[in-house]
């Protein structure tokens, strides 16, 4: 049988459009999501959740970075950010941003933090 080829599993822009309801990127407070932000679920997935939302909630029972989520779910960062933002807004997950490089005062990273990283690396 011939005809226009259609992917059995929609991928690319079409799939992302469906997943996000056409939204192209997060707005508001979660627009600051980082690839190293850790996402942690507040509880079990709720019945009737969109499949991808449910996957995120399930996978984040233990903390997981946005980058790892993206790799596991096969979703690019900007699409994933929209989905995570939905869950944040609904109070289903918490986001922990990476500990920043410099404090509000503009100083370098906290020395205690650097010592901690150092001793961890020395144990490798």
């Amino acid at each position, binding site marked *: 049988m011939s005809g226009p080829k259609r992917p059995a599993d929609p991928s*690319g*822009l079409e799939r*992302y459009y469906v997943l996000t309801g056409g939204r*192209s*990127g997060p707005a508001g407070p979660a627009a*600051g999501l*980082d*690839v*190293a*932000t*850790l996402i*942690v679920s507040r509880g079990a997935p709720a019945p009737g959740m969109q499949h991808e939302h449910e996957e995120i909630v399930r996978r984040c029972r*233990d*903390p*997981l*970075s*946005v*980058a*790892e989520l*993206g*790799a*596991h779910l096969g979703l*690019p*960062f*900007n*699409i994933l950010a929209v989905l995570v933002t939905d869950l944040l807004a609904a109070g289903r997950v918490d986001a*922990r*941003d*990476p*500990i*920043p*490089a410099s404090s509000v005062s503009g*100083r*370098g*990273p*906290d*020395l205690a*933090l*650097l*010592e*901690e*990283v*150092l*001793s*961890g*690396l*020395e144990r*490798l």
Partner: protein
Amino acid sequence: MVLKGFDRPDQPAIPGALPAESRSVKVMIAGGFGTGKTTMVRSVSDIRPLTTEETLTQASADVDHLIGIADKQETTVSLDFGRIGINDQLVLYLFGTPGQERFWFLWNGLFKGALGAVVLVDTRRLASSFRAIEEMERQNVPFVIGLNVFPDSKEHPIDEVRDALDVPQHTPIITCDARDRKSSRDVLIALIHHLKDRSAATLEPR
């Protein structure tokens, strides 16, 4: 029989899962194409290195035009990453930057929030990492240089390399083998020492 996760009560029961109270820090591995960024991520990571992707679509039409890609075409750039468990509260994420530096701008805040960066340099092709060094300086990201030694690399005195790369005296330059876990770890340790020195230098006496 080895029961992973059971012999270490401080570790989560699910292999590879992070402890509940974890926080993260990130370090970038930059450098020109083929300088060993992915190799270094792979050699020190606790997990199998993964790739995450960013899709560039019509939102960046102007940029598409600049780099000669038709409007609304989908362009994907990849970021290889790994992680190192520092302790039961802290995990370090390592991100290898895309080889094509022209895509770095896509990574909204890619360097923002990073503790610092390692810029890998192949001494056979010093120029391939110029752009990465410039970018670190422009974005004010503290960095160390890792001279990745390839089997046919000639030995270059560090001072000559420093001159050629035009990096200041206080920027550490370390010779390394990105394929080797300990060697790659030592570059990260050098970066953290460098950050400590900078941090100590900026502390104002009260």
